[in-house]
């Protein structure tokens, strides 16, 4: 339970990090407009920084969204089902998220490592090493995986409880 609490706090912290990142994007674009239009000094890094910011925001908040089950889903079918079936489906849903998150962690890490070893740069003005940006996919994927595993465990427990409650006493 203590470990779960730690990861819950981490997911909250990641959301705040992405909030700060968003604020930085707003300020940097505002600064760029000012420098370009008033001082005639355009800043090429702003565009790239903001684009990378979008990837970071996506992966930083992803674990919180899994934890709070706020991801967009089509629930017209599941809402019609009884609680027992819904609990079973919750196991399936979190199982699938675990698989996707594992792919993010495993193949995201190997892609990042490969880009790092080969010294690949993004062919843009800033020429940022791709590995320095792509690493957020396995990192974010790791926290998604942890939250999905926690939710999967809870779903299995809930499903078991429902099943036990349904068994008539002898």
């Amino acid at each position: 339970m203590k470990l779960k609490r730690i990861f819950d706090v981490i997911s909250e912290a990641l959301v705040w990090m992405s909030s700060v990142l968003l604020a930085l994007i707003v300020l940097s674009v505002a600064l760029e407009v000012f420098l370009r239009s008033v001082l005639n000094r355009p800043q090429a890094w702003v565009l790239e920084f903001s684009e990378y910011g979008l990837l970071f925001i996506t992966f930083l908040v992803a674990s919180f969204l899994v934890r709070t089950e706020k991801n967009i889903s089509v629930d017209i079918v599941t809402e019609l089902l009884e609680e027992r079936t819904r609990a079973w489906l919750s196991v399936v849903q979190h199982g699938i998220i675990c698989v996707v998150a594992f792919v993010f962690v495993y193949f995201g890490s190997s892609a990042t490592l490969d880009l790092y070893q080969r010294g690949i740069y993004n062919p843009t003005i800033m020429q940022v090493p791709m590995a320095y940006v792509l690493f957020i996919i396995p990192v974010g994927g790791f926290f998604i995986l942890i939250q999905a595993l926690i939710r999967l465990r809870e779903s299995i427990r809930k499903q078991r409880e429902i099943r036990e409650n349904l068994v008539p006493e002898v």
Partner: protein
Amino acid sequence: MEWWMILLAIFSGLFVLFALGVPVGYAFLSVNIVAVALIWGGGPGLEQMMLSVFRSVTNFSLLPLPLFILMGELIFNSGLGDKSLDALDKWIGRIPGRLSMVAVLGGTLNAALSGSSMASTAMLSSCLYPEMKKRGYRSEMSIGPLLGTGGLATMVPPSNLGVILAALAGISVGDMLVAIVAPGFLLSIAYLVYIGVRCYFQPHLAPPYATSHYSLRTKITFSLKYLLPLSSIIVVVMLLIYFGIATPTESSVFGVLCSFILGIVYKGWDPRVLRVSLKQTVLVTGMMFIIICASVTFSEILAFTGVTEKLIQIFLSLFSSPFWVVVAMQIILFLMGMFLESLPIMMITVPIFWPILNSYHIDPLWFAVIMLLNIELGMITPPFGLCLFAVKGVLPELGMRGIYRCAVPIVLLQLIVLALLIAFPAITLWLPMSMHQ
């Protein structure tokens, strides 16, 4: 493996995952993972997929999206949105269908702030329906217009879905936002005319009632204080884009800064407003972007397996006229809109439809606008339109059959507007064309 078997496998896989309640983004990603592993082989293909995730999200066209969301959140959390609605309410006197008209005008205003049809419908339903019921409004004049506000949310700029569709389809975001202005207002006017005419001939649907009398001075003061600053932000953001003074990203940052300053002016410095707005924005952005993560790989799979090419060939053999292609695509979108959310529909159809549109030399901007309206139309179309369930969720005492009945006139109105947009592309294209001139 035959192309149609691949197509069938991809789409049945997606729909099964949707039906199981798997979050849309993860459903797309898992289908991508399986397809990539089978088609391109495990390791290298999946590593390539990680680069596609990177390319899908680090897209400059998507940048205005979180900024427009933040702008709306700042205005909403500072309470300015409610006050503006109140100021608007003061102008509408004792006329038939007064509250229905407030719903439409409020929906237009709210659309510019929220950009989400379900959120807009749910919010206005919870705010206005109790008052409508108290005043003896029949459900045709209460639920109907409230459902209609959902469609406005995506058709009034700055529209979140408009930005996403432009980014997915490779259209200029500025063009897209300018192109939806006229259709959005046409829809809004169509609702107002419908309410006015219907309430004039059937006054029992929305009985007129005595409203509080406000002096002209009060009305002007409220409008200058609340309505003018808010509408000015939205108008200036759009004008900056229209005159090419700023890119959509830059003008959205302008909107954010103005909303932030307005919030301080009206509510004083409250760090909670900023904190909550930022948090809410990154969460909504994350929800949408985890779906967009799958977009590049999904189109690559469809193109690589020959599905896109075969579908183009089928369309070319079936339809010689671009008109019927557009009609066929609209029917497909309409049917999908009855079961799915807007974002998955865009993700599925854009990689298939856009190469076909190019083959027929159909204007992608014009098509994107009618596609946007059509997807929203699906959201209020019985039996599964998602906005219908949003109303049911907020007002559980209403029966689904009653909600369906109220939706029919609004669906017909949207169909008329859709037909007008198809018949007269100039309605959509004159503003973007004049912008480029």
